[in-house]
Each structure stands twice: as C-alpha cells, then as structure tokens.
C-alpha cells in the first residue's frame, strides 16, 4: 500500500495556513492603538505622479495617523464620500467640491495647491495647435481637422475641465463620439497610453504627464493658458451627516496639508527636477 495523505487533513492544513494570515492583518490594525486609519479619497493624478507617496509618510510620521489612500476619478471620489465611504477628499473640481459641501456632506472646502492642465499630442501635430496660445482655439482646430482626440469620458475633474473648454470653444464633440472624438471612460494613465497608441491629442494634468513612463513621440503642444489652471481642494466629510467617519483624523489631515508643514512638503515635491504642484492654501 502506498503512503496515504488523507484529503481531509490536507484541506484542513491548507485552510489553517491560508485563513490565519488572511484574517490576521485586520486584527493587527485594530490593535495598533493610535486610532482608526484615515481613508483618503483622492484622484489618480495625485497617486500616479507620486505626490501621495511623497506626502503621506510625512503626515503619518508627524501625526501618528495611518493613511489609506484610494485613488479614483474626482467624480467617483465625491460619490463614494457622499455615501460615507471615506473620511477626507483631496480632489480637483472646485464646483463639484463646493456643491458637495453645500449638500451637507462636507464640513468645508479649503484650497491646497494647484497645477495646470496641458494639451499633449503627436509630435507631427496635424491640427497645428502648437502655434496657438488659447486652449479653446486649439480644441476648435482639432475638431475642424477631425484629428483624433482621446477624452477621459469618466466625469473626472480632468474630464469636466475638458468639457468646459469645449463649451468655450463653442464645439460640441459628442456627436463625433466614436469617430475622431474618443471617450475612453478610463483613468488618466490609461487614456494617455491610448492617446500615444492612437496618435491622438489629449488633455492631461501636468503632474501625471511628467511622471508618465510611456510618452513615445508625444509631447506638450499647448500650455500656459490661464484657463488650464487646475486647483486642488481638501474637504473633510461631515460627521454630522455620516456618523461613521473618522472626523478627527480627517480634520488633522486637512489642517496639516493646508498648514506650513504640508505646504512645504507639496512645494518640495519634484519629478525630474520639475516642481509639479504649487501650494496655495490660505491665499
């Protein structure tokens, strides 16, 4: 008779070895003491550019609060926060953030920093936008030429900024959706990957572009238009409306990032020697 390894014993051994560590982290976190971790709902631009990896360890060291950052589009972050699924927002759509506060979900919005949007596209620049200074004129030129344009199409802060520029250009790109105007419905990085592959133009925040690793022949073709200003705000979720939120930690984070230490940390963040976010709290 060959040696037997009973199936039941095997299953039991596997269960114990797998379940124990899977359940352990949750317990360990709860026992860690220093209060509940802070759930930060932020945008893909702050994660993809590396800003959060630069800021959060500094805040954690100074406050003793563990931060868990969930990076999604601004629209998705605001909707999650409106359900109470997060403690504090760091997003870039001032209009939507102010509405969020007005609807009673947030305690208030504070300026944190800004960066700017840029129009990127293929080096060949078929619509000739590099010669222009104003973003709406550039979009009108792209539309007139029917050159491919990759849009976020996901109600993110960047997408909303893009739609404002189209409105100002008096061009409605939606009828052309599926032809030269391509609504990707994805995050900034995925849209940039697609734009590079499709020789398409795209509107992106400067931070994500600077840190992006797959630029190929794409480059910045238009920048510096004041309309491309991209302000970020911090909004703690209101505990009166959402009792489960970690309000103390959220307020600590909002105070820190708008205070001297946080503002200095933002100013010191660079990619390839380039400063990507300009702190502007209290200005």
């Amino acid at each position, binding site marked *: 008779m060959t040696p037997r390894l009973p199936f039941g014993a095997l299953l039991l051994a596997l*269960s114990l070895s797998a379940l124990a560590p899977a359940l352990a982290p949750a317990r360990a976190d709860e026992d860690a003491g220093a209060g509940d971790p802070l759930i930060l709902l932020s945008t893909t631009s702050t994660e993809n550019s590396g800003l959060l990896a630069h800021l959060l360890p500094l805040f954690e060291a100074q406050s003793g609060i563990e931060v868990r950052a969930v990076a999604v589009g601004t629209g998705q972050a605001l909707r999650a926060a409106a359900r109470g699924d997060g403690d504090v927002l760091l997003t870039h759509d001032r209009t939507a953030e102010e509405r969020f506060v007005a609807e009673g979900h947030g305690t208030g919005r504070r300026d944190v920093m800004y960066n700017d949007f840029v129009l990127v596209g293929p080096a060949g620049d078929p619509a000739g936008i590099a010669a222009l200074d104003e973003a709406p004129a550039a979009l009108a030129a792209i539309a007139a030429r029917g050159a491919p344009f990759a849009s976020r199409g996901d109600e993110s802060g960047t997408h909303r900024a893009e739609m404002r520029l189209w409105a100002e250009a008096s061009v409605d790109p939606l009828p052309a959706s599926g032809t030269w105007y391509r609504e990707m419905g994805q995050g900034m990085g995925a849209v940039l*990957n697609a734009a590079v592959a499709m020789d398409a133009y795209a509107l992106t925040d400067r931070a994500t572009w600077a840190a992006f690793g797959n630029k190929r022949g794409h480059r910045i073709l238009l920048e510096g238009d004041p309309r491309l200003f991209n302000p970020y705000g911090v909004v703690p979720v209101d505990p009166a409306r959402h009792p489960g939120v970690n309000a103390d930690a959220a307020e600590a984070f909002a105070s820190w990032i708008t205070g001297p230490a946080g503002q200095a940390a933002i100013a010191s963040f660079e990619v390839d020697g380039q400063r990507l976010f300009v702190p502007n709290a209290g200005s």
Partner: protein
Amino acid sequence: MWEITVEAIRLIARGDAEVLEIAALSLRVTAASVLASCAIGMPLGAAVGAFAFPGRRAATAALSALMGLPPVVVGLAVYLLLSASGPLHWLDILYSPAAMVLAQTLLVTPLVAALTREVVAGRAAEYRDLFASLRAGPLLRLRALLLDARGALATVALAGFGRAIAEVGAVIVVGGNIAHHTRVMTTAIALETSKGELELALALGLILLGISLGVNAAVMLLRGPSGALAA
C-alpha cells in the same frame, strides 16, 4: 520581452520588499477565498449532482450561468453591501483584505459548485445501486462521493484559484488598491499600466504567472503520477 523577463527576475532576485508584500497578499486573499469557496461550493455542487429534487435542472443551469459573473459586477454588489450606506456596513470591512476575500468567494463559489456537480453527477449514477444496498444516508453519500472524487476536486480547486488570483475587477472596487494594505498583484499591474510603466507592469505579470505555476506544480506533486490525489 527579454528585458521584461530580466526585470521580473531582477525584482525577485533582489527580494524587492514591496513586490514580495504584494505577492504575499495576493496569495493570502486568493487562498482564503478559494478555501471558503470549496467549503461552500463543493458540498453544494455535490448535492445538486447527487440527489434528485424538484428544481434540480434549474439549480444546475443557475450554477453554470453564475460561473460567468463579471468580476466588476460582483465587486460593485459587494461594495454597495459594505458601503457606509449599505446593509452590511456594520462589518466595517470596506477597503480591507476581508472585503476582497468576500468578493472573490462570491465570484469563485459558483465555479467550484458547477464543476463539482459535473464531477459528482457521473459517480452518483455509478454508485446508485451500491448506496441503495448499503442503505447509505444522504450525508454518508455526499462524503463518499466527495472523497472518491478528490483527485478531480483538486483540479476544481485549482480552476477556482486561477479565476481568483487573476481577477482585478472585483478586488480593485472593494479593496481600493491601497498601498501596503489592499494592493495585490493584479491591482498593482493595473496601477503600473496607468502610470505608463508598461515594462514593470509586465514584469509583475510574469511574477504572477510564476506564482500560479508554483501552486499548480505543488498540487500536481501532491497528486502523484497517477493523477489521483495522494492515493
């Protein structure tokens, strides 16, 4: 492709702490959800395969259809359940590994149950007369059938493992891809892709493939050359 392979080997060779942490979490979450799925799905599938009862065909069809559940739909359903505004908010596990295990268990259980039903149904017909002559009760029948099919059931568990470890849609919604907390191999690959770090993303993909190969090889070794599990 060569450079990507080298990058993958380099990441493993220098014992990149973050990659190891991410790979370990992938394994833990997947193992926990596969075991939970087997604990629920195998008896369930075996019961559907072994016993005649009203609605059995409908149950069979339902199990097969649920195998095709899109992960992101399961993720959204679990998200809404666990959300602070959802019915299971008191569990307080949104954006945690436990939420990921829950979502993957829901995703993998139908697969395990449907495949188990398939494996057991044939054997149940074969043993019908034997069970009758022994006057075996339903629990004894289930146990005997599952034990008899253990070799095939190991393959079923591996199929569940494959579905769970390669899945990104559900775990990114309920886990949130939080660094050092809920970031697993697939969500890390999605993140690196979105950063345009395509080589790093592919290198992580190769490591994930290596993990899958390792687990499959381990189970093959346990099963021995005959294919029957440790018999």
